[in-house]
């Protein structure tokens, strides 16, 4: 049998790959249970509810101190994005008129023999 020289880097890479596989397998066993799904969704539900509650409180506070809230800023962002969209559509329409609809290349290509 031919001697295979010791390659520490290849050994290290194999170690990492094996570790990755093992962790993923263990995780799939843990997360692939009804119990995990129940707890994860419960946590998500609480987090979403807490976030909604906090957002409402913060909104009230900012309103009281006459400052714009995140929702106000997001509304302005959406408005700006919509204006940007409208300008872009005008630009595209102008480009279209300039270029016309004619295809710029011929469309007769045939597959080449392998």
């Amino acid at each position, binding site marked *: 049998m031919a001697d295979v*020289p010791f*390659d*520490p*880097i290849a050994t*290290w*890479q194999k170690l*990492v*790959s094996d*570790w*990755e*596989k*093992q*962790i*993923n397998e263990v*995780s*799939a066993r843990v*997360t*692939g*249970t*009804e119990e*995990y*799904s*129940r707890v*994860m*969704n*419960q946590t*998500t*539900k609480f987090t*979403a*509810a807490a*976030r*909604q509650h906090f957002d409402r409180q913060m909104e009230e506070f900012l309103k009281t101190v006459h400052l714009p809230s995140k929702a106000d800023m*997001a*509304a302005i*962002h*959406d408005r700006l*994005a*919509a204006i940007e*969209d409208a300008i*872009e*559509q005008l630009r*595209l329409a102008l*480009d279209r008129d300039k270029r016309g*609809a004619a*295809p*710029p*290349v*011929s*469309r*007769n*290509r*045939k*597959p*080449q023999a*392998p």
Partner: protein
Amino acid sequence: MTGGDAAQEEINRRVRVEIDRAVLRNIKGLEFLTSPKQPVGAMAKDTLLRRGTLQFYRYRPVVNDVYRIPLVIVSPTSNRGYVFDLARGQSLVEFLLQRGYEVFLIDWLPPRRDESGLGLADYVLDFIPACLARVREVTGESTATVLGYCMGGTLALLHAGLQPETVENLLLFATPVDFEQMALFRLWGSEKYFDVDRLVDALGNIPGEFILSAFDILRPANRTAGMLHLWTNMWNDDYVKSYRLFDRWAAETLPIAGKYFSETTKSFMWRNSIMKGETVIGGHRVDLSRITAPVLSIVAQHDHVVPLPAAHPIMDLVNSKEREEIVVKGGHVSVVAGPAAVTRIWPSIDQWLGKKSV
């Protein structure tokens, strides 16, 4: 030279190589930590349509004579379309342009807050048809090859089921149809525990981090192992560049429009409606057996996001005389980019599609 001397010389050579690499790792590691985002996008393109989350591009042909049938790529709704055009030599778009196809791309931007009401009907019956109409205007051709990846493939398939007359060929990459086979996602999104309406009500659009964390829970060790492999290969510029391209793409996972998320969860995850032929979009029942265009489905053997059995039934759902499934080694992303795609998958696509594009 004796056998012993040769062995000693080989050991010395290896030690020198490893010392060089160790030095390079440190120098390039510092560069890596301080460098800006890896630029993406190799090929020149023009925007044809932009409407909120929808961006539609036409890539500039690089040959004078193109195939008659244009090719439209539909990106997955949770990811940016630049995965099809990462960099020179790693770009499906570049490959297709060089092989003489006229390429268009439906890409998605993060949906705005006021777009949380976009649903399946908007994607399947408005966005995709609007883009195909632009293709007709630009090329004069009434049909196109539609190529979809992941959920982009599912949208392309549903569109083809509703408007089969617009689709000349259908190319599907890692496209899920049997959601019962996506065991973990199905369990986590189970109707019993997952209050999707409450989540959408609280968040509006579903943040990209939420989607990304679901992928991370699916394979929790991947990120750390990826970093360790990166460190080992830090001396190799090509490896580092490729890592950064994919890392950027994954990190830029897009938020998903709330209504679309709710509809896909209920219809696909809970009811597995595509398999049962019960998907209804905008009041129309989707009948995939109306699809008679040639279909090529490419699936990855070790895809942990869309496992092979989740994509395999496509072959039975469509009514095409010509339908083919190619199973390749690798994972979810390797079907569109990476060494296996470049050397094996893309040439197979060209071979299959060329004669159907005249």
